């Protein structure tokens, strides 16, 4: 009984269930047949034909050997050219001077990234990651050569973060390609890439990238701790990992973001962020983020000062429009009609006269219709895309007005709002604004401008209070910190003098006085 309880509460039972841990951690025997048989059993050999093997005899030591690899994971051409051919071509050595396993690995194989391994668990781990394992008769060590050859697509243009001016390559599904894209931008020897694994049943490698001389060390530790705490059998993509390491999964405010642009990733690294890369994910995860990460685009820095800032001002207006305009419309119509110039007020009253619904209903009807239209637009097959436009614009706009369902001014309000939410660069920010808009509509319906003000104050307090990995959401604006002042607007490049080395991570802290002379 106590044993059962101990197992129940000790929490290491999950550890035992892990697939790789079920592989016996036995060392190799010195009989080739036994080793091969054991590996074939582990890969369920006759039923599962993934494990391929080739028997050969190595002339230099005059012994039999087996070359094993997994079809689809390893590159067979590499195996032929750099493993089997050198092994077969090796010259018979003199008596007593036969090369050891290490000698073969170092001096016979013409492939980089080979290591000697000694147990089955390591052998299985290497094989599923695309390596080739060479077993030699009479040896208790085997050679694992890196021959990974997973299929991948070539680097292409970004699809979500499009710029008119600037580099145009995007991440692909292979980590090594992504890392090379980043290293091509950031030629710095202090760019660290650490590998951690996530997932218990089928572990995946996650690369943690940061610039060692700039990043706050507690931040890196925090990110790694969070990844280590993930308790899942399998984490296949970065998007899944994103939610698992997030601080507030229920919050509307994102605390991590993804980007598909290597240049943006590099500039984040230069600012001291931590970047996560993972196989199978054509994007990089940036942590931590602030409001500015969501608000800025890559192009702001590529365009000239005035053009980039003009775009930013427009985006700021779009942000407030998308968030507040329907609520303000409702508040003005129902609580503060004196704000509208008299002529316009009469015109509105004239068109509203024939609409039977209260303003709130009318507004919600249009808002929900628009959201459905947008959701449908994402899923509609491309050839039908124009149809959605016609349905949306003509039937819902024109006909709804003619049927006296909504007033024409409201259609204008909804159209501007919808357009504005498309101008927001980040998907998370855009969706957040769309959801919050309904809250503001409700607040405006209840208390007009006072309702909007109180809701906005609460929203602002929430946004200001949250932290992403310890970094406040609006920093360095509030709390104020020394920065390159790249916030709502950006200064010219010459003045964005970011000198990370001059910033000690701890600002002049209060020195605790000892005793106090007078007491």
């Amino acid at each position, binding site marked *: 009984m106590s044993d059962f309880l101990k197992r129940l509460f000790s929490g290491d039972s999950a550890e035992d269930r892990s697939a790789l841990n079920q592989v016996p951690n036995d060392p190799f025997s010195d009989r080739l047949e036994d080793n091969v048989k054991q590996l074939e059993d582990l890969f369920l050999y006759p039923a599962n034909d993934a494990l391929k093997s080739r028997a050969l005899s190595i002339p230099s030591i005059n012994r039999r050997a087996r070359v094993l690899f997994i079809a689809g994971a390893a590159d067979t051409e590499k195996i032929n050219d750099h493993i089997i051919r050198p092994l077969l071509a090796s010259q018979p050595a003199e008596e007593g001077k036969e090369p050891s396993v290490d000698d073969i690995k170092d001096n016979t194989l013409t492939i980089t990234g080979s290591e000697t391994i000694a147990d089955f668990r390591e052998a299985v781990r290497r094989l599923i990651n695309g390596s080739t394992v060479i077993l030699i008769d009479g040896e208790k060590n085997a050679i694992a050569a890196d021959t990974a050859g997973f299929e991948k697509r070539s680097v292409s243009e970004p699809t979500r973060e499009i710029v008119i001016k600037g580099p145009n390559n995007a991440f692909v599904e292979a980590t090594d390609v992504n890392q090379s894209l980043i290293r091509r931008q950031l030629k710095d020897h202090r760019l660290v890439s650490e590998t951690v694994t996530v997932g218990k049943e089928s572990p995946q490698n996650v690369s943690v990238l940061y610039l060692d001389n700039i990043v706050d060390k507690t931040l890196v530790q925090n990110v790694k701790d969070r990844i280590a705490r993930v308790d899942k059998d399998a984490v296949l993509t970065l998007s899944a990992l994103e939610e698992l390491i997030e601080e507030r999964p229920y919050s509307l405010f994102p605390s991590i973001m993804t980007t598909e642009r290597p240049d943006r990733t590099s500039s984040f690294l230069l600012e001291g962020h931590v970047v996560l890369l993972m196989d199978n994910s054509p994007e990089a995860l940036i942590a931590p983020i602030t409001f500015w990460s969501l608000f800025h685009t890559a192009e702001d820095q590529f365009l000239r000062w005035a053009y980039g800032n003009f775009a930013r001002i427009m985006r700021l207006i779009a942000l407030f429009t998308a968030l507040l305009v329907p609520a303000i419309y409702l508040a003005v119509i129902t609580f503060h009609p004196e704000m509208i110039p008299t002529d316009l007020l009469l015109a509105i009253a004239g068109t509203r006269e024939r609409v039977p619904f209260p303003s709130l209903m009318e507004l919600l009807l249009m808002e929900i219709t628009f959201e459905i239209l947008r959701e449908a637009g994402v899923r509609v097959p491309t050839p039908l895309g124009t149809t959605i436009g016609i349905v949306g614009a003509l039937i819902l706009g024109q006909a709804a007005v003619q049927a006296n369902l909504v007033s024409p001014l409201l259609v204008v309000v909804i159209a501007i709002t919808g357009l504005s939410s498309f101008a927001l660069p980040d998907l998370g920010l855009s969706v957040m604004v769309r959801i919050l808009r309904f809250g503001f509509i409700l607040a405006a319906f209840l208390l007009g401008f006072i309702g909007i003000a109180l809701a906005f104050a609460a929203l602002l307090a929430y946004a200001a209070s949250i932290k992403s990995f310890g970094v406040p959401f609006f920093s360095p604006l509030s*709390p104020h910190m020394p920065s390159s002042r790249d916030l709502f607007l950006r200064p010219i490049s010459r003045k964005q003098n970011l000198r990370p080395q001059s910033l000690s991570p701890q600002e002049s802290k209060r020195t605790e006085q000892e005793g106090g002379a007078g007491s």
Partner: protein
Amino acid sequence: MIRVSDGKIGGREFFAIIYSMMAIRITNSTPNLLLDSGITAAWMMPLLSAAFLLGPLLLLLPLLKKHNIGLVDLLYKLTGNAFGRLITLALFVAIFSSTSLNGRNYADIVTTMYYPETSVLLIMVVLILGASFYIAHRGLEAVSRTALLVVPVFMLTSVFLIISVASQLNYYYVFPIAGSGAGTILKDSVAYSAFYGDIILIGILYAYVRSHGAFRKAALWGLWVPAFKMAVFLAVYVMMFDYPAVQNIAFPYHHLTRMAMIGTVANHVEAVFLALWFIGASLHFAIYLYLSAFLLGKVINYREFEYLILPLAGIAVVLGMIPDNHLQGEQWRKLLLEVSSGLFLLLPVLLWVLDRFRKKAKP
């Protein structure tokens, strides 16, 4: 440059807190008290009050630096446990009752000027139990950062408001320059210096501020900037409405926003000012609720004082409903101000004397 926050409050955030505590007074019925006694020279009184408080503040700053603890802990250390507790209780009563009375005052303004059919209770509840409680509940760091985000906007709006009424001002209305006479003005400036008593009170947050330099800078700027703003607005009220009419206007700020025009198209923009004013109000009461809870926590030795914010907010709403109308509340406010003025002016002096005395007694 990304940096992990150290949980302390910087100088700018602290200034923003002080500003949102004090500067908003110009929008409630505080100006009426000053206009009643100062008449056309009312604009001098905030400056004089601030000058009177500068002395105690300058006494307090070195004390805080020397002991490196917050005002409440300093009180306990210098006056002993029992007296310290008593004075802390007095501070709590002063600011909590002003939270409650001011809350009622704001609700009265809204129901009088903007929403005549809404009940006072509803406004009180959504303002104090709703937004202010929520903001205070997010913690001091959140309050300070929110304040820093909105205070620049408030400063700009003030300037904007004055510009938009500038064409309607008559500069000769501020004469006679001495108003009700130098003696009266000096005397009443002292009596009403509790308007800026907050500057002494925020000493209780000393331990949360990043450095002494930041505290000192924020306190000095936080004293003169709101005082200057108040002086400018009092002068504008007199120039706009003229004496004696200005004495009979209940809420001069809100009348002023009604007069504001932007060009010829938008000649009623008071709703915009209403919204901005209410954001400021919710922040103002959030800070007061937080400080009340902090002080009460110290009095009753309750460490998790954040849990006191909700009950205090509820009590503030209930207490605020006691006055029958806003004129009655006004009398109580006046009394409270005069009593707490003495407290804020004398407290630093008391602490300073005790500190000197103890230093001499010890060796």
